[in-house]
């Protein structure tokens, strides 16, 4: 098993290395002179030359590429062109907010999606089945930022029952930072009131973010269960006298879920993408708002760093998904050998 995990990690590395190279290439094909862009419109040639020397932009390309790779591997993503602070620091400050939101959304989407998919499959071609199918197609067609705004309009502006923006009410301030995850840090600080407030802030963004995932998971679980129900071992288990609930909820679902788990890995990309827009709508101080800010201030260093960090997170998630696969299906690790 351990061997299998190591293999999976090794397989993910080349693409990540490629990503580092790609970000470098991207930073160099920026139309025009990066030094001139950095210096701004009113810069004198001397200033531009100074910047060029300071950022090492006057060295040969290959050398710059090597420097870039070495820096990235050692965790140095450069300084923000906007704030001047190290990008890696700024990202580490904001990453937990995004991860917390994404994780809550993913858990929500998985639990509800699997349940809906299962119920739909057991009610094959019945009314619940049709309803779930409509939701699962519709959920993928809604633009997340628009849904976020519509929910804000209704729940925050019209009814005023859920907060409009942010992670926690300003009157509380932030709890002492331990993990960066507010739902954990507030509890560690012994403040259930703050925890509840953070939870209330989480509701709308998480639901918005979860919807496409929920749709996908429900859909794949449904088809997975339907397929598994046709299998000989289900017939055998029924003949041998398995209970109805156990058969559906455990015996069949575990087979169906192998497909779903793969989808969760693919979904994570969609979730991160969705998070960018949703964070912008809810003023969620995460990686998404950071990226948008970087766009608005033409901070390409920050933007490329975000790309890289997301790539790493994405790769980690995909390794985790493969490990989960192997845990669910004992044949996976064996086959890979």
């Amino acid at each position, binding site marked *: 098993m351990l061997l299998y995990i190591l293999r999976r990690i090794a397989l993910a590395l080349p693409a990540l290395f490629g990503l580092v190279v790609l970000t470098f290439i991207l930073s160099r094909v920026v139309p025009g002179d990066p030094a001139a862009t950095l210096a701004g419109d009113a810069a004198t040639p001397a200033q531009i030359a100074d910047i060029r020397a300071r950022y090492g932009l006057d060295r040969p390309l290959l050398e710059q590429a090597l420097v870039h790779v070495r820096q990235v591997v050692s965790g140095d993503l450069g300084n923000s062109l906007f704030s001047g602070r190290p990008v890696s620091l700024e990202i580490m400050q904001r990453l937990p907010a995004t991860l917390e939101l994404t994780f809550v959304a993913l858990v929500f989407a998985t639990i509800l999606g699997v349940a809906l998919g299962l119920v739909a499959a057991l009610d094959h071609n019945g009314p619940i089945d049709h309803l779930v199918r409509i939701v699962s197609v519709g959920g993928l*067609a809604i633009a997340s930022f628009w849904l976020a705004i519509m929910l804000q309009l209704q729940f925050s502006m019209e009814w005023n029952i859920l907060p409009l923006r942010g992670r926690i009410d300003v009157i509380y301030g932030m709890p002492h930072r331990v993990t960066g995850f507010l739902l954990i840090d507030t509890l560690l600080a012994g403040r259930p009131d703050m925890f509840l407030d953070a939870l209330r802030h989480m509701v709308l963004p998480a639901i918005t973010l979860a919807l496409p995932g929920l749709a996908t998971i429900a859909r794949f679980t449904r088809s997975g269960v339907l397929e598994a129900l046709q299998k000989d071992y289900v017939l055998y288990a029924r003949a041998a006298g398995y209970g109805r609930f156990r058969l559906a909820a455990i015996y069949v679902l575990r087979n169906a879920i192998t497909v779903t788990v793969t989808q969760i890995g693919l979904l994570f990309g969609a979730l*991160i993408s969705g998070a960018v827009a949703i964070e912008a709508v809810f003023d969620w101080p995460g990686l998404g708002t950071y990226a948008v800010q970087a*766009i608005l201030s033409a901070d390409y260093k920050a933007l490329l760093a975000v790309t890289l960090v997301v790539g790493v997170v994405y790769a980690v998630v995909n390794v985790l998904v493969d490990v989960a696969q192997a845990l669910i299906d004992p044949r996976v690790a064996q086959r890979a050998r």
Partner: protein
Amino acid sequence: MSALRQLLRDPVAALGLAIVLFAVLVAIFAPFLAPYPDDAFESHIMQRLRPPSAEFLFGTDNLGRDMFSRVILGTRSALFVAVSVVFAAIVIGVPVGLAAGWRDGWLSETLMRVTDIFLAVPQLILALALGQLLAPGIGAAMVALTLTYWPFFARTVFAETRRLRTSLFVDALAGIGAHPVRILLLHVLPNAAPAVLVRATIGMGFTILTAAILGFLGVGAAPPEPDWGLAVAEARQHLPEAWWFATFPGLAIMLLVLGFNLLGDGLRDAADPRLRRSRR
């Protein structure tokens, strides 16, 4: 033709096709259908933020422009962006997939590794980075979306080519001395076409959504372009008063994406007999 009939027999797919055809017609005749076609660019400050009425079906925006007209005109740009991006992605992705799938070797390895790199980051993030670096604008957004979407076609065609290259008829063709390019274009490609078509249809919906996000974030279409995503962004400052301003462009996105997704689903079922059987 039998495939089309098969498709139309599936009510879900038929609905998708109807929505897509409707959108295409609206896009083609947009200037004639929109009650105020000039509102693409003209503003009328005196009538700003009017609620929906007989005069302005979807109300007016912050510059007094008719939202109904702008939603209709937006269909054009949405479809134009999606079609161009998907087409360009096919032009890049299909040859890469064919070349990489045909023979194992350094070329195949290199091409697929490059594909992996582009798939190592979620599309939107990469598109944001690219779009920003290429100087924000609808053109840059389209290039960025293309660069992030071609790997999907490469993957699809790669898989199909690998499957087909060991098949009997390809062996037979190679045996009688047919040129590889000829085999690929005339025999392998048509077999991969259904998979590409399904990918393309779903990709249309995906591109429309992603382009809308880019527009919303200010990296895509720029004012005063009648773009749906951009309109939702502009509407945010006028909530909750002008609910119509944000609502209708979003509904338009949903309808069009829904159409492509339903059609894509139907196409996939029609193209894959195995799935069709499991639909029972």
